[in-house]
Each structure stands twice: as C-alpha cells, then as structure tokens.
C-alpha cells in the first residue's frame, strides 16, 4: 500500500440548514459524502441524518436545522474532491414521508468559512397519471441512490423539478496542501483555531 503523504483535512460544520420550502414543514435531512477513489475519511461520520425541524414562527418561515457535521478526509489526489449530497425528506399531506429535494455541492476548496446555498430538486414522474398516483400513494419517484446527484453519468435520462434551497455553512481547514503543491487560497495558517463560535440566524 502506498504511503499516504498528505492530508487534506476538511472540517466542515453544517451550522444550519436554512431550507425554504413554501409549504413544507417538519423536514429532516440526510447527508452523505461522495468522493473519489483516492480519498478516505479519517474521522467523523460520512453519512448521517438530521433531526426533524419545523418552520420558524417569524416572518421568514425558514426551516433551521443547525445540524453540525464534522468530517475529516485525507487524500493523495485532488481528483474526486468530496461532495456533500443532501436529501431532504418530510411528510406529505397524507403523512407519508416523501423526498423533498436532492442537492449536492463540492466541499469548498479553500480553507475558511464558506456559505453555500444549494438549489434542491426532485425527480419528476414520467407521466401525469403516475404523478397523480405517486402523490396519492405517497410514493414519489426517488433516486435509487442519492449519490447519483453528485455525478453526471446517467442523469440525462431523468427529469427533475427544483424546489427550495438549503444553505450550508462550511468551516474548512486544510493541511499540507501548499506543501504538496496545491495552492487553494489563503496561506495555511498554523493552528487554525477550530470553527468559530456558533452563530445565530443569518441576516
């Protein structure tokens, strides 16, 4: 086995999800990471599920998860940079859990704090009738594997509809990137002091 000679430690904190769906409530979110063959997680859970959140009572009617995720990866190759794949679920009118959106985004390359807003989408039914029955039966079309949203292959056969956005807040720390010839932004500072203290809702 080849020796791992550098580590890209990306430590990201999903500070909150700000999931603005017009009529949905009580949503929860699954996440997983998709990464290339040269990547390996060294710490943290690369797959997980959040708590259920309800709409805020203020005017924004936002759904806030404030769900932290802490993952560290190492790699020998920037190819296959990790992506986080989110899939949001929630009950429909009849109380069935249905998928409310899929989305994916690359973990930011440069260290620091990043805020990403991911547009979410769901696959569409192939016909009007199926749309009705899927609505009626509470079995909406879903991806066989949510990871497909992180890749392009095979997506041409699907039709999707967009709904809502999820906001993620990343705190990324990298290590030894510059040493190995990858300049991803501001210089790697020694002893980056973890993620900044939790913040309230964004303005």
């Amino acid at each position, binding site marked *: 086995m080849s020796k791992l000679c550098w580590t890209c430690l990306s430590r990201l904190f999903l500070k909150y999800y700000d999931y603005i769906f017009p009529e949905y409530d009580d949503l929860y979110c699954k996440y997983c990471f998709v990464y290339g063959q040269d990547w390996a997680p060294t710490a943290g859970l690369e797959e997980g599920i959040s708590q259920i959140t309800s709409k805020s009572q203020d005017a924004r009617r936002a759904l806030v998860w404030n769900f932290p995720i802490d993952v560290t990866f190492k790699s*020998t190759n920037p190819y296959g940079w990790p992506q986080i794949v989110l899939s949001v679920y929630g009950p429909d009118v009849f109380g069935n859990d249905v998928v409310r959106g899929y989305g994916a985004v690359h973990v930011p390359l440069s260290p620091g704090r990043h805020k990403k807003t991911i547009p979410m989408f769901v696959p569409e039914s192939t016909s009007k*009738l199926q749309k009705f029955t899927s609505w009626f039966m509470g079995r909406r079309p879903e*991806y066989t594997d949510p990871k497909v949203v992180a890749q392009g292959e095979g997506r041409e*056969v699907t039709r999707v509809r967009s709904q809502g956005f999820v906001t993620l807040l990343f705190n990324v720390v990298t290590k030894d990137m510059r040493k190995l010839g990858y300049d991803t932004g501001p210089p790697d500072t020694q002893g980056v002091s973890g993620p900044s203290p939790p913040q309230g809702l964004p303005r």
Partner: protein
Amino acid sequence: MKSKEEKVKIISEEFIDDGEDAEEERQKKPLKIPRQKRKKQLPTASREEMVLENSPVDDQQEPVQKGPDTRLLGMTSRRGPRSLPPIPSASRTGFAEFSMRERMREKLQAARSKAESALLQEIPTPRPRRLRSPTEKESETEFGTELDREVQRTQQDHDSQGHSRVKFHDSVRKIKSKPPVPPGFPSAEEAYNFFTFNFDPEPEESEEKPKAKNRHGANREEKEGEEEEPPVQEGDEEEWLDGKDVEDLLLGLDHTAEDFVAVRPADYQSVHVRLQKEKELLFVPSRRTVPTYKKLPENVQPRYLEDEGLYIGARPEVPRTNQNIMENRLLTQEPGRRWFGDDGRILALPNPIKPVPSRPPMLTQEQDIKAELETLYKKAVKYIHRSQHLIGSGDAPGNFQLDIDISGLIFTHHPCFSREHVLAAKLAQLYDQYLARRQRNKAKFLTDKLHALRSAVQMGLNPAKTPKTLETTPKTINEYKSEIRQTRKLRDAEQEKDRTLLKTIIKVWKEMKSLREFQRFTNTPLKLVLRKEKVDQKADEEAYEAEIQAEINELLEEHTEEYEQRMEVYRVTLQQWKAWKKAQRAKKKKKKQEAEEHPADEEREEPGPGEEPEKPAPPEPVDRAVIEQQVRERAAQSRRRPGEPTLVPELSLAGSVTPNDQCPRVEVMRREDIKRRSLFLKVTFNNKEVSRTESRPLGADFRVHFGQIFNLQIFNWPESLTLQVYETVGHSGTTLLAEVFLPIPETTVVSGRAPIEEVEFSSNQHVTLDHEGVGSGVPFSFEADGGNQLILMTSGKVSNSVAWAIGENGIPLIPPLSQQNIGFRSALKRADAISSIGTSGLTDMKKLAKWAAESKLDPNDPSNGPLMQLISVATSGESYIPDFFRLEQLQQEFNFVSDEELNRSKRFRLLLLRSQEVPEFRHYKQIPLYDREIMEKVFQDYEKRLRDRNVIETKDHIDTHRATVAKYLQQVRESVINRFLIAKHHFLLSDLVVEEEVPNISILGLSLFKLAEQKRPLRPRRKGRKKVTAQNLSDGDIKLLVNIIRAYDIPVRKPTASKFHQTSRSSRTFTEKHAASPTTHSPAHSADYPLGQVLVRPFVEVSFQRTICHTTTAEGPNPSWNEELELPFRAPNGDYSTGSLQSVKDDVFINIFDEVLYDVLEDDRERGSGIHTRIERHWLGCVKIPFSTIYFQARFDSQEDEKLLQATEKFRAECALKFPNRQCLTTVVDVSGKTVFVTRYLKPLNPPQELLDAYPNNPQATAELVARYVSLIPFLPDTVSFAGVCDLWSTSDQFLDLLAGDEEEHAVLLCNYFLSMGKKAWLVTGNAIPEGPTAYVLTREQSHYLIWNPCSGHFYGQFDTFCPLKSVSCLIGPDNIWFNIQQYDSPLRINFDVTKPKLWKSFFSRSLPYPGLSSVQPEELIYQRTDKVAAAELQDRIEKILKEKIMDWRPRHLTRWNRYCTSMLRHFLPLLERNQEDVEDDHRAELLKQLGDYRFSGFPLHMPYSEVKPLIEAVYSTGVHNIDAPNVEFALAVYVHPYPRNVLSVWIYVASLIRNR
C-alpha cells in the same frame, strides 16, 4: 407683526444684493443659513398662530378695494425674494422682455383674484363676517374664527399650497423677530396682504413639502411656474456673472440653489451658430460625382483593363449616389488613393452571385422522384465474430473497384418515333445547342474584345496619352490590328451562326406546328415560345451605325494598307519592268507595239515578277462606297436589324399530349407498341459481361431511367468498358441495339467526384413499322408527296458516370499504374492542357505551369481560376500546403507536458489506466502522490498480460489445444467485458429513479385484496429479503450463511470379511451418488451388518475463502444436522460494487467426511484408565458451489428482430406476472454479445459415430453414453468467465471447440444429440440444487419422461425424488417455448404434456405463428479422433505432477508410494471407465485379495479434463495427504480416456494404505 416687517427687511436686503456685486453675496450667506434652519421648524408652528393668521384673510377677500394694492405688493414681493430686479444692465434679457412678463403677470393676477371673488360670492354665510374690517379682529369671537377657518378650508381647494406657505411664513416671522424694524415700512395690513399673496415667489423654495402634501393647486402652480421662469433665469445669469469668485459660489451653491435658482430654461443657440459649430464637427460627404483625375495619382490616365481584353467580371451593383458618397468620403478621409483601381473606380471584386442556381435539376416526372427517394433494402450480413480473434485476414491484394453509375438513357431517335417526335428531337437538339451557345455568348465576348482592341489601338495611336508604352506602340498596334481583323471575322461568323440557329429553330417549330395541325393530335409536350425583347430603337440604330462605320473605317484602312503594299510592289515591278523594257526596247525595238498591249491584260492580275515581265498595272484605289456596300450587306445578313426586337426562344414541356381516345388508330398502335418495349443495359468489362441493369419499360418520352450503380470488383486494368443496349419487344427475344464504349476513368476520378456524362450511341438496325412510328434506317418523308426523304438511324444517349471507388481507409481502389497500358497521346495542342501534356502531366506542376505560360491563359478568367491557383502554389515553391488538416488544433496548447513525459510518469500512467477502467487498476485506491512512491511491480501484472496476449502459454495447460482455447476464451471475455463496460454507462430511467408503476386493475385489485388479508397468517410465506444497497459496506459486514440440514444415503463403511477394521470407501462423490438410478443404492441398507453398528459418522465441512467451518458429527447414513454455519465474506479489494462481487471466483466447498476413531492404544493394560484414539477423517464427497451462483444478476442486451423481441418482452411480462419465481427464458446472448432467440440453438446434431457404434442394439445405453460424453466436456460457468456481465450461450460447435461451457451449453448439445437420435427432447430450464438456475434435458421415452443432467450425464425418472432438478419453469423445443403455468413446478408434480395449453403456455401460437427462425447451429458437427498417444503422455504427466504435489503437501513426513498397489489401480481404472458402476464389487474383492494385510482407504476421482489445476485441487480436497500415521503408504493412479474431439475423461485413484499389524 414684527415678523412681517422682518420679511420685508429681508426683501430690502435682497434688493440691495441685486444691485451689488458678488461681495454682497457673501454677506447674504450667513443670513440664509439660519433661515434654512428656521424652515425646518415649520411643523412646530402653533395652532394659536394659525388662528391669528386666519383673521387677516378677510382683508384679502375684498379684491375690489384692496386689489390693486395687493397686486402691487404681491408683485414686488414675488420678485423680492428672488432678488432679481430686471433693471441692472448686466441682465441679458432686455427690458422689453421684462415688461412683457410684467404684463402677463398682472393679467394673471387679475384673473386669479377675479376667480377668487367669484368663488367667495358663491358662499353666502361667511361673507358678512369677512366683510368686517380687520380692526375688529381683536374682538372676534371663537365662533367667528371657526367660521373663518371653515372658509379657509373651502378655499384650500384652490389655495392649499398657499395655506401651507402662510403657515411657513408665520413661523419665519415669529422667529425672525430679532432684527429691529426699520421705520417707514408698510403697515401691518399691507404686509399681511403681501404675505398672504406671497405664495407665488416661493413654490420652488418649499417645493418638496407642499407637493407631497397636496397637489390640488397644480393648475395654478403651472401658471406660476410659467410666470416665474424669467426671474429664475435672471438669477442664474446673475450667478453666472459671479464667476470670479467660484469658491464662494460653490460654497453657497446649496442654498443659493434652493433660494434663488429654481427652474432654468433650455439653453438656446441660434440655428446659425449651431450650423456653424456643426460644420466644424461634422462632415457630410458630397453626392456629386468625383472627377476621375482626383482619384488617380497625378498625371496618370485611367486604364481600363476590360478594354485591354482582360477579364474583369461584373461588379456588384451599387447605386451611383452611394458610390459617389463613398468616393468622396474616402478621398477626404484617406488622401492615399489605395482604394481606387487603375480605372479610377473603387476596387471591387466581381459579383460572386451566380446567375443560375447550382441546385441539381429535379426531374419533373413524378415517378422519377419516387424512384430517387425509394429506400433500398440491403440484406444484413452477419458479422463473423470469431475470425476477429482466431484468423486475421487482410484484404487480398489486387482488389480494386470501379463504380459505374448508369442513370438513364434517352433516345434521340427510335423506330417508334412518330414524325412529330422526329421534329421534337430535332427541336430539342437545336434548342440545347442554342442554350449552350447562349451560355457561352461568344458573339458578345468577341464584340467586347473587338471594342477593347479598338480603343487600345486608338490609345496607342495617341501617344500623348500613354507615354509609358511609347516604345512598344508600333509593334503592339500592328498586333492589335491583326487581332482586330481576326476577331471581327470570328465575331461575324458567330453572329451568323447564332442567327441561322435561331432561324432553324423557328423553322422546325413551324414545321412541327403544321404537322400537329395536319395530323390533328399532339404527341409531344414540347412547346416553343418566342419572347420578344424590345430594344431602344434609337440607341440601337446608333450602335449599329457606329459599328458599321467602325468596320468600314477599319476595312478602309486595311484596304488602304493593302493598296499601299500593292502600290509598293507595283512600283518595284514597274521599275523592273521599265528596266527590262529598256533593255527590251534596246533589243527589240520593233516589237514595241506588241509589248504595249500586254500590260493591259496584266493590270487585272496581281502584279508580280513574271517570267516574262509585263508591265504592271497600278492597283485599284480603295473605294469607300464599295466597302460600305459590302459591310452593310454582310451586316444585314448576319446581324439583327436595328430596332428589331431580340427573339428569345423558350422551349417548355408545357404542352399537352392528346389522349389516346382522340388519336387515330395508327397512332394508338404506336403508343401501344412503345408500352410493349423495355430496355436494359449490359455492362461488359474487358468483353465479359459482368452485370446488367434491370429491364425498364420505355417511356412515352423515350427516356429510360435506370439509376443503378454497379461496383465492379476487378483485378486487372480495364481494357475496355462497354454498355450494351438491349431492347425487348413484348415477350419476344431481345435485340442488341447498340454498344456504348465508356472511357476508362483517369486515376484522379474517384467516386463522388465523377460528373454524369452523356455518351451517344447509334444503331444500324433497320426497322419498318406498320403504325405511325417512322422506323429506323428506312426513308420517310414529312411531305404528302413523299419527297424530301429522310433516313434516320436509331440513336440515343446514355448518361452515366464511371469512377474509381474509394476504400474504407479513404484510398482509392485503383490498380497501380504499372498495370495500365499507357496509350498513345495526341500531338501537342495548345488549347487543351490535358491533351498537350498528358494526364500524368497534370500532376507535374512544372509542366503545367509551362504550358499555362505558353498558352497565355487569361489569369483573371474564373474558369481558369483553380488552375492558376494550383500553378501559383506549385511554382512558388515557398508556400507549403499541407496535404492534411488537423483535428483539435488547439490540443497542443493544453498539453502541459509532452506525451513522452506523461507516459514516463508512473503516477499519470496509473491515473490514466484507472480512468480507462483497466481491470487491474479499476479499483485502485489512493494512488500515491509522488512517482517515487509507486512500486514498479504495480504494473507488472498488467504488462505481463499485455505481453502474453498473443503468446500461447502451454506450461499451465500441458495440452496445446486447451491452451489455445483458454487464450481465446480470455479474448472473448475481454471483448465482451469491454462491450458491457460501455453498456454499463448507458442508464435507463429505472436505473436511476425508483418510481411506482402505473397501477393497473390487477395491482389495484391485489392491493384491495391485501386489505382483507390476515395480518398474521397461520402459514406465513417467506418474504424476500430486502436488498441491501452496497453503499457503506466494509469487510466483515457480509456473511455467508450455509444451512446444513441433512444428508441422505451416505455410503457406509463396509467391513471386510476377515478383519474387524472397517474400510471406508466411496466410489462416488456426493453428487454422483444421486446419479445412479435409485435401485443401485439399495445395497447400502442391506441387513448384512449388525444392527446398531455405527457404520458412518459423517460431518460436513464448509470452506470458503480459506475459512473452514464444520458441523458436529452425526451418526448413520442419513444424518440430520440442521446447523447454520457462518462464514465471513471479503470482497476483492474491499470493493462491494455489483460488478466486483460478480467477479468473485471463489467457490464454496461443502465436503462431507467420515470421522473414524482409531484406538491407538497399543497396550491393553491401560484400557481401563484411558482411551487414546486417533481421529481420522475420510473424505466422502464434495459439493462445489461457485459464489457466482449465490450472487447472480443477469443483464441482457437486445438485437433480434424487433417484432420478435416485442413478443418476447410481452411473453416474459405475462409469465412474470403470474409466476414471478419462474424464470422465463426466451432470448439469450451469443458469443458476440447479441441477443438470439433461444430456439435457434436447438437443432438435431449428430453425435460422434464412435459412440453410436458402441452399443448398436441398445438405444438406452447409447443415450447414456452420449450423455456421458457431453458430461465429459469441462464445466465453466459463464458468470465466472464473463464476470458480472451476462450469461453467454455458445453454439454447439463453438462449445466443442472451446471444450468449456456451463449447463446451458451442455444441455443444448445433449438435447441436439437426442434430437438427432430420434428422441423427443426438450431443454428444461429451472432450478436445481447445486447449480441454481440451470438447464436440463427432458426426453420422452415410450411411456415416461427422463430428466438428464447434462453436466454429470446422469438421468432420473420423472418421479425420482433424488432428481436434483427441483423446479421446472420452461420447456424449449426447436420450434417453440412452453412456459409452465401449472400450480406446481416440481417435476414430481407436473405434467410434461406440452400439448395442453392449460398447463403449458406456448410462445408461438396461432396468434403468433412460428416464423421459421434459422438455426445458429452448424449443419453438422465434425469429429476427429483424439490422439491416443498424446492422451497416454498426458496421463503420465498428470500422474507425475500429482505425486509431486502430494509429496509437497506432506513436508514433515515421508511419503512412500506403494508401487504394487499403484499398478493394480492403474489396471483397474480403465475398467471403471468402461463400465462405470458395475465393477465395484469385483474391484473391491480383488483389492482385498491383493492387499491382504493393508488397511486400504481410497477412492477413484473422476472428472472431465480441462487443465491440471482442478485435478490438483480435487486431490487436495480429499485430504488424503493429511493422514499422518507413521507407516502410511500411498497409491496414485491416473487414467486418461480419450473421446472424440479431444474430450478427455480423467480418472484418478488415490489411496492410502496402512499396514495392519
């Protein structure tokens, strides 16, 4: 009312300001700033103040008395705050203007007050109160005030703004009470009036606020705005004047702007000034024509290239004015004259638009269009896949191709032509000629040339104009002149030709018309229309006259020249004559009289030195009148008369042909005759017929359309290429009409570039017809009296093109030039490049260039364009034109390192190979970051594989044939895998999205039914396990569960007669055990043995991936364990994806052993205190289950006939709906990866004759032998060889070639053999115990059915409980598929009668009849005898290898071989092969006899031979070598029995012997 005064004070101050200069302005500033502040306090103004203010309003309401007063005040005040009195002379606006405004304002004021009063009068109640004098205001009651306020509210409609302003002023007033009130100011009333009326000046000041509040007074405001404009301007100007102190101005600007500046009028400049300015800035080019001298360099005459005879081309049309504008602009902008040509015009390319569209002509007839659009059916050619790997066949050399495209045939004469047709053909021909001539328009060209030459001559004669060409003038002029002469002659000839042609056309048309009239019907749709183009009579006449004059002049000149020449000659001869005469006279003075007469005769003749010199006569002087006469005559003859309209004939097919019923009988007969005729062409190549066209009927228009292309595959250089035209009349024979010789195309003519050419032909046949047709070769006449006879021969044109084909790689398929007979070439000609330098010269650029230079090609003529370009490119030498073009020309820029460097880098190579999904690297993880960290050995396997791809390794295989097969299998596997790797990247929606299917009635019904279902049924059914997605698995997560339930019929140890010790033996493996018919098993339970005696203590050991688990030891021949064994599973490389799981080659071995306890205690004394036993285990049998069976997933590709595929889909869907667990097999994938309908595999095929001959009288034995033969072909599961891809079916010949295949191939072969042996046989698909989904063979004997296991060769009766086939889903025959729709699928419980549609659903039925699918199997199988010597050799080698292996496996012990036993076994093995089961007892007895004092434990292993490794594995798994008794001896014998086609049956007898004490 101090504030009032204060306001007035401000006004006065501002008045002063106006008068003063900017210095005062500065003083003003501090004043304004506080005021600004004060304004802000406006909202705080108290209610009280408002009340106070309200009372004085009364005064204002009496316009009659106070009117003028207030007006005056208002006027001043209005101007006041603006502080801009008009008096200062600095103001630009004149006094008059001001007074105008003043008057305007007054008028407005008056109007306003009038309106107000009118309004007030309408309100009766408030008036009395208001009429009270202002003095009463102190005593005013609360009530009154209120009223007043009411009034004011009503007033607000008009005056709300004013109201607010009033408030404002009050506040101002209040605060600004500090300054002392100067004496002599207006009274309070006046002041009040002033303020109440003082809304006008301030709208801008507080504009924002009131506007926001109220917009009621908009009307008034507008008026006010108008009024106020002038003062603003004044203020503006005032400030403008203050330019000296800019800083001050800027500082105070904010306030000033608020206070003074409000609205500014638009700046105005007088038109003249503006025009003046515009003139400076703008440039308007003139439209007038630019004189030529301006456009040319000085002292240069314009040169007209066209006149010099050079080709210029037509310029694109641009309106004259536009041209002039452009020229003017260019002249002014760029003084250089590079935009202008020598002729003083703007440079322009010739008009690129072609006058004729280049679209290919569409044929007018409908059927022709259809023929063009017709799709051609081309039969598919099956691609022979195997040859790709086994035989590499290149293209045979000398394979050339000539494409002959025969598009059609047109007759210019045919015996069936009617008279009208003859004329029509003539007319058409003439018209074509006319069109061609018109296209060339030679006359026009020559005329132009003539003009050019003439003007050139004129220029040449006028040396002042062209000083440059002075030297060459006389010579060139002479040249020009001679050319003029020639050109004129040519021109005249051309014109005359044109004219005659036109005349002929008209004449023929007239003839045709008269003919049509005469015969009273029309045969041809031809119609000629003469279009007259009017010409300008006058201009035409002038041109005509000028032309004649020019000609006359020239002729005159010519004649004069001639005359002069003659005169010269005349003079010379005259002198000679005179000299001669003198001499003569001196000689013969007498003959003087005589001599004088002669010259008179001579005068008419040309003067020349005669033999007998005679007196030359002076040439006649040129007579202009005569010449003119001649010229005019000629012109009248050949040219269009002036003013005569130009005639343009137009030939169309617009006419209508008279229908048959209106024609006379003879004509109808003619038409009928045409219909009977058809034509075809034969293509002969080197006088051999190679192909012929289809026979096509002759059309009424005597055209035949073929539209066929013949691809001639030739080997030799074509000597001749001929088309033979054949005509068929009715049903009688064909006649050869004519032969058309086609030219052999040049080597440069290749397919796609060859133009369609028309080749004429004619025939000399004589045909006389008895109808209207004129016949051929016989005289006929148009005239009634038969005069003026014509004889026409059958003739026509074939339009065709011949070209060399282009091969697949783009190389033309042309034989090398050496094959050509280079024919003679015509002599050098100047006109034609090809004839002058030969075709090969075309490739020799220098020759071509030379020729071009010699022949004085016009380089500007577009028809010579490509040639000139070619020459210029070729001769310049410098310019390099690559003979290739580059794809992805930008690629180079993106190459960050060179390819070599990239290849050298191990890391990049690794990344590249991984991304290409090369199997070795597909799942390579964490490629190291640096090259130095990558071990070289990473690539070793891969490189070795690449190297070995074409090397056949015989080491591992011993047998060369099998080595080849293995290699081939590997290659097929690779290609199939590649194919599927590509297919894997094509996704269907169902691969990506999980979607509920549209519910249909049955599903809905089912779901409804489910509601009523019991929640916990008494007999629960097994529910399928939920599939686990392989997302997050790691080693240890997956476990293999093996349930060992029970065993039947385990062989028992048979005690020897003499000895107490038992000898364990098993002549059959576990699976084989079931094979023999049940009857053979009965001895196992014979009652010979003492009851209660444990005969066997079996246990089961399961091994998978080097992990071994075993059950507890049970007792007896029918043990029941009921244990679950758990084995961990590790996926290769930790990759748990489907593809990788399917490629797991590990097998699950289930071995059954007999545990034997031996008492090792040798001393009987100790028996009481302890027991020492040695446990020995003896191998009884083995079941090998490939992992691929456990994990199986099939995926199919489709390529059969679409209809059939749809039917199969439907069939499958129907079957799956009813019985989802029964696999319905309809299509399978063949070796080349294509889907094939399964019945195509079944076809009677002959088994080896040798086997048939073995038991000639016993069909059952023959069948068994055949089954055995089939079972001896090694088994190789597809799922392993084509990892995770699909189940491939090879045909029986492929299978026998490969000598490897899985159950399906075995079953197919066996089924085919049975079919050829006349049995009723079907392929059975279903599930069997060790194999999983598999294929068996079912045969129907006289009364019962037999189920054959093709891999073992055993057969079972239908009701045999030991039959491994547990379920039956499909039966497949050679022509149909039957799906089991019975309730049960166990063979025990089903009926195999396929004729019952209730039990078996057939694929082909009445609704879908069997289409007669051709078989994919070969016609016949050919067997060759296997070499016995080679088999013996192989036998020895296997034995040697196995012995070595056993010794290797016992590294700590000595391995002794018992030679005696070995040789005995070796003799014994062939017997086993011959009659497999029966020899057992004899064999045992013999063994015991021979090996009297040995404890013998051994068993024969039998397997088909594929390679050595499985044999070793089999021996190893028996565990014989594990016996570590100190005095053990071994015996091993191998026997290889050869069957036809290299099928080998291998027997291995392994035994351990322990000498008894």
